[in-house]
């Protein structure tokens, strides 16, 4: 470690009963830029470790009182000794000792008689490796803590949105009720101008209700610990299409559905997914000659994807990432909505462990694909 000041020299604890080796080790290691502490038997070695907190331990196998293996495992049991590199010195052909050294937690070994130049390099290498490992552990712990905090914040945000949209529901009931009464009971007295104003208010309150309902929905996905059940997608899609029947007929849209099978999930959420995707398909149809919406599945087993395809206005690939974010609406397409539909779909699909994607281009229609890992195999 060239350039390090004396106070930052890595400290090597040499534990060996051979006094001659101790002297040689000190001379050679100090020359290599290490600081050295010594202990001449096993018990003293453990004690010195606790006292000096060395950066590296150079440990002889054969010693009186406590042998090197015992010392190594005792160091490993100390809270500050769990990760300190321990290099054991063994005889050249002592294969058993090498095995045992690793078993008791030694980091590396070197054979006697020692090659001092090699030892210097090995110690520096071991020291560097252990440092990197420490840094890694620190940043890993940091990351883990951040992930925990992020999850907590997300949950907090969700419950805030949930509580807020909830509290907004009571005044909304009032607003809709009172404007409803105004329309019901005072319509004639209002005059043309007044009627126009009240109708605008009622329409806006309706939009507000839809928005608050969707924020509530979005904040609820993932918070809910409701039980999953086997859901027939065929039934769900037919129900959703039935609900949209009026619009579908009015615009003369042909809707086809392939056999979809079943998935395991929360029924209302599966309904939400299809009702948003099919609803969007209808909404962004534009005016093709033969409007068509196809719902189906493709692939098999683990790679099954469900899709909702339309031949409507399509979406420029530049916007593909954006459309799944809350409140991102395409400005060049006129349509009513809350801007939360696809965000809700994405959150539901991902909470179920699936993925949502889109294939589309301007004027070429859109296909939304999603996977649902808990698909029931027929």
């Amino acid at each position: 470690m060239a350039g390090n000041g004396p106070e930052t020299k890595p400290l090597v604890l040499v534990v060996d009963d051979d006094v001659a080796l101790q002297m040689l080790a000190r001379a050679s290691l100090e020359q290599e830029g290490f600081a050295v502490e010594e202990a001449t038997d096993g018990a003293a070695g453990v004690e010195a470790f606790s006292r000096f907190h060395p950066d590296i331990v150079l440990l002889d196998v054969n010693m009186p009182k406590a042998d090197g293996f015992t010392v190594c495992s005792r160091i490993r049991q100390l809270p500050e000794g769990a990760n300190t590199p321990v290099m054991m010195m063994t005889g050249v052909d002592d294969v058993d000792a090498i095995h045992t050294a690793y078993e008791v937690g030694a980091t590396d070994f070197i054979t006697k008689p020692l090659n001092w130049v090699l030892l210097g390099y090995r110690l520096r290498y071991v020291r560097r490796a252990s440092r990197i490992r420490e840094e890694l552990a620190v940043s890993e712990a940091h990351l883990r803590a951040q992930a925990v905090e992020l999850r907590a914040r997300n949950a907090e945000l969700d419950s805030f949105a949930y509580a807020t949209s909830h509290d907004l529901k009571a005044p909304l009931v009032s607003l809709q009720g009172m404007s409803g009464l105004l329309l019901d009971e005072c319509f004639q007295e209002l005059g043309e101008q007044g009627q126009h104003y009240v109708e605008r208010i009622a329409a806006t309150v309706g939009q507000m209700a839809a928005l608050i309902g969707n924020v509530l929905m979005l904040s609820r996905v993932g918070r809910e610990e409701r039980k999953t059940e086997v859901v027939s997608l065929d039934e769900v899609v037919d129900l959703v299409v039935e609900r949209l029947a009026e619009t579908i007929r009015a615009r003369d849209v042909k809707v086809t559905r392939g056999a979809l099978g079943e998935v395991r999930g929360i029924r209302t959420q599966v309904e939400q997914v299809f009702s948003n995707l099919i609803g969007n398909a209808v909404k962004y149809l534009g005016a093709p000659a033969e409007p068509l919406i196809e719902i189906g599945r493709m692939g098999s087993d683990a790679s099954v994807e469900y899709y909702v395809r339309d031949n409507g206005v399509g979406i420029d690939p530049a916007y593909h990432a954006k459309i799944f974010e809350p409140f991102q609406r395409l400005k060049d397409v006129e349509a009513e909505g809350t801007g939360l539909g696809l965000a809700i779909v994405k959150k539901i699909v991902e909470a179920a462990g699936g993925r949502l994607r889109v294939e589309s281009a301007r004027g070429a229609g859109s296909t939304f694909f999603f996977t649902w890992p808990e698909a029931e195999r027929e």
Partner: protein
Amino acid sequence: MGQSRMNILLIEDNPDHAELTLKALENGDLTSRIHWVKDGEEALDFLHHRGRFADPTAAPRPCLILLDFKLPKVDGHEVLQEIKGDRTLRSIPVVMLTNADRGEEIAASYRAGANSVVTKPIGFPEFVERIRTVEGYWLRTSRLPEA
């Protein structure tokens, strides 16, 4: 006060919601008489003939109670528990009204003896219709015990 008039006790702190509920009930085809109190404390005074309801003719025994979840002073859930814990009151059907759709709250209400839990719809026609459905079911479809 005619015997045939059925008394409904409405416990609702939100004056708008109370007015809408009263509106929905008065325009219906049933001739029920609605007594409106604004919080849980008043509700218990009404039911126990205490305070300003000491005169029993001012607070006749209701045949149906509409009880909002969130109330000041004494909460809706506590009012429910008190009613269902009282030997003379527990036979009166209690319909809980809520803005929320919280599973835990709903389950807790039924455990405490609520006879029905109804969410308040946001739209005005839906609101009126739901209140009338509740009234019609309890006062016409159901046979209620003699007071």
